[in-house]
């Protein structure tokens, strides 16, 4: 299951400066595991030590925030696009 993944500026140091990378996986969890084999350190920026999606990272499947889908268990399909965007937030 080939999926296109859009990488935000802040994480491009982990992807050799690539803005867009390809990954494989039938769930978001599997995709992140696959990406980790190619871009070491990426998964840890997206998922916390308890294995949950980090609170201030937004991940979208096509147009939808995965928090409103199945989180890390969200199913992916051929040709889907996953977009990662850090939250713009503060105090």
């Amino acid at each position, binding site marked *: 299951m080939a999926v296109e993944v859009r990488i935000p*500026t*802040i994480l491009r140091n982990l992807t050799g400066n690539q803005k867009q990378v390809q990954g494989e996986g039938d769930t978001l969890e599997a995709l992140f595991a696959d990406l980790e084999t190619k871009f070491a350190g990426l998964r840890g920026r997206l998922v916390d030590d308890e294995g949950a999606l980090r609170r201030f990272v*937004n991940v979208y499947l096509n147009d939808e925030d995965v928090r409103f889908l199945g989180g890390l268990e969200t199913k992916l399909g051929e040709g889907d696009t996953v977009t990662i965007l850090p939250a*713009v*937030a*503060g*105090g």
Partner: protein
Amino acid sequence: MLTIDRATYDAIIAHARRDHPDEACGVVAGPLGSDRPARFIPMLNAARSPTFYEFDSGDLLRLYRDMDDRDEEPVVVYHSHTATEARPSRTDISYASEPNAHYVLVSTRDPEVVEFRSFRIVDATVTEEDVQVVDSYPE
């Protein structure tokens, strides 16, 4: 140094005043690599809080897609502090994720005094910079 045109500078302050006592937030986009804040985009503070701000997740995706389509980047990321000084809080520093952006802080604690300051936040290191307000950008 942040160089910003008067109209955008005034618009940021007006947005901060309008949303007081909640924090206001937004972006000024500009052509990639130009370092020129050109397109003022006030955002909704989804947290609607006097002590926190966060762009709505759907708005955030639309904003970045739109900038991408126009070959723009966020040149300025701004927000207001409503009771404290115009400098990044610990939370601001920990969530800052645009190393190329100017982080603008406006304080609305005193309705008579304008506090507008700009910072770089890179790898959790904060550096204040000068702000130059110009009538318009050179051609």
